[in-house]
């Protein structure tokens, strides 16, 4: 029997697989047994009610998808009164994702949704910081640290910082979140991208730029997970382009403790369960008793250095 459990700070997950925020919903319970997931991460909410971005909201590429959804949000009251009770019927821990326009509002919203039933809060800091020229919080180490600190002092729940990949050196942001008190990092959100229809000459998204997700992003995000795993002590949740158990294992070897699945659930709703099954198979085949032993278990390259070659 393979032990699939992993530990994200104080939270024990039955297995390392969970949905990425915004790619999961109550509806999935009509399709599969959500109790088999490691955690349930809900769509980001904001304190205010929002409609989200104008369509078109999606453009498709060969191996990735470009989205401009924005954050359609029904606000914290709906979350606490409708969603939290709904998810109480399931066993995996519920992780709420929140976003806000200012550091203070992140703290306030974290406090408002810290209700029984919510087991951790993920901070979606990839949104614009209205007090700082609208640059994303997650592109700015100072703002990242402040947001996490504000949330940590507003709630006793674990706080996960979801970083953006649209940065230079991601370890700077990872460390800022750790210093701010984050219990875990989610690495990472979608990559800022765009596309133009050459016949109409219009952008293919209503808001011109959007977030790129899906398999093609994996090599870049994997590199970021690897870098972060060498920069911080807190657990890392890999997120970007996972669609098979092999992808999840790659993330774990690079340093992730758990893994989120996004776009792949849209291509096949059962992806997450297939990944869980595949993890078990891999562990059995490779005689891995505890999946947590895969975290950061990459070994060095089999290099043919010229220097070494000399001695052959």
């Amino acid at each position, binding site marked *: 029997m393979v032990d699939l459990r992993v530990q994200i700070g104080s939270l024990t997950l039955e297995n390392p697989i969970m949905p990425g925020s915004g790619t999961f919903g109550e*509806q999935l319970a009509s*399709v599969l047994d959500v109790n088999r997931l490691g955690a349930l991460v809900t769509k980001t909410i904001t304190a205010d009610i929002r409609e989200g971005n104008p369509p078109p909201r*999606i453009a498709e590429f060969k191996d990735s998808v470009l989205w401009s959804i924005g954050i359609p949000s029904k606000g914290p009251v709906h979350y606490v009164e409708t969603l939290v009770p709904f998810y109480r019927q399931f066993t995996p821990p519920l992780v709420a994702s929140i976003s806000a326009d200012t550091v203070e509002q992140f703290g306030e919203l974290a406090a408002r949704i810290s209700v029984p039933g919510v087991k951790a809060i993920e901070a979606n800091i990839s949104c614009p910081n209205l007090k700082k020229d609208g640059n994303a919080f997650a592109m700015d180490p100072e703002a990242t640290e402040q947001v996490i600190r504000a949330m940590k002092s507003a709630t006793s729940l674990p706080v996960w910082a979801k970083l953006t990949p649209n940065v230079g050196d991601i370890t700077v942001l990872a460390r800022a979140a750790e210093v701010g008190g984050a219990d875990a990092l989610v690495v990472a959100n979608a990559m800022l991208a765009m596309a133009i229809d050459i016949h109409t000459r219009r952008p293919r998204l209503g808001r011109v730029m959007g977030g790129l997700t899906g398999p093609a992003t994996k090599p870049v995000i994997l590199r970021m997970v690897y870098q972060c795993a060498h920069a911080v002590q807190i657990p890392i949740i890999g997120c970007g382009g996972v669609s098979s158990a092999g992808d999840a294992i790659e993330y774990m070897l690079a340093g992730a403790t758990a893994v989120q699945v996004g776009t792949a659930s*849209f291509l096949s*709703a059962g992806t997450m369960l297939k990944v869980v099954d595949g993890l078990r198979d891999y562990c059995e085949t490779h005689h891995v008793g505890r999946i947590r032993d895969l975290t950061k278990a990459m070994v060095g390259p089999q290099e043919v250095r010229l220097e070494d070659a000399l001695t052959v």
Partner: protein
Amino acid sequence: MNAQVFPISESMAPVVSNDAVNAEYFHLILEASAGMQAATPGQFFHLRCPGVSGESPLLRRPMSVYRVDRVRGHVEFLYKVTGAGTRGLATLQRGDSLDVFGPLGRGFQMAPETRHVLLVARGVGMATMAPLAESAQAAGARVTAILSARSPEFLMSNDYLKSVGAVTRAVYDADASSDMLHVEAMITALHAEQPIDLLATCGSNRLLQLVKQLGARFGIPGQVALEQHMGCAIGMCFCCVRAFRTAEKVTYRRVCCEGPVFDVRETLSW
């Protein structure tokens, strides 16, 4: 481990046939599980289209149910070849299997006391309403269908609609009979003949506007099946929204789960 049954499922459905109907349209018949056969009129499936010469599309493609044949255990689709996905669909042959996800969405809502249903559609839009014709007929309602097309060779589903007992009227661009004023006059006359108590439309913005007007004028409910590009097709990704007008405000709704069939009164034109 658990005997839970899920209303929506992903399954590999064997292809019974997949024949070209004309130069642009194909008629696909799949062997369907009981779950698939539970599809109601206006619902759709999300299809993983096979690739053609390596251009296998990443996203699934939404496709309305054209017919559920519960006797043979089939679900049928009528589709137009437009891009990579539908080109891939067109390569399917008897013996292949297609990965289908569904049934999905909120279909047409017909009150039990409905007596006369009018369907008005253009092009492949009629595919979406064909199951409504069949079920309305089965429920004892009269069904009249106005089919609008460029010219007679692009007429869709006429025979099938007749076979389920609908009275069909074709209108064409070629002889200007598809003109809105003419269609309006036809509907008005039909309504005079036997009051219409459900208007349903699909596939044309101009027909939608007409149905909206006439619905308001005669005080009868109108429903429209809308399309939008989709990601998840079950309401999770919020990419399939269109703008609607409610009593209080203008708001986005998800075509995949709040629709694809909507009350015409709340639709906006664009």
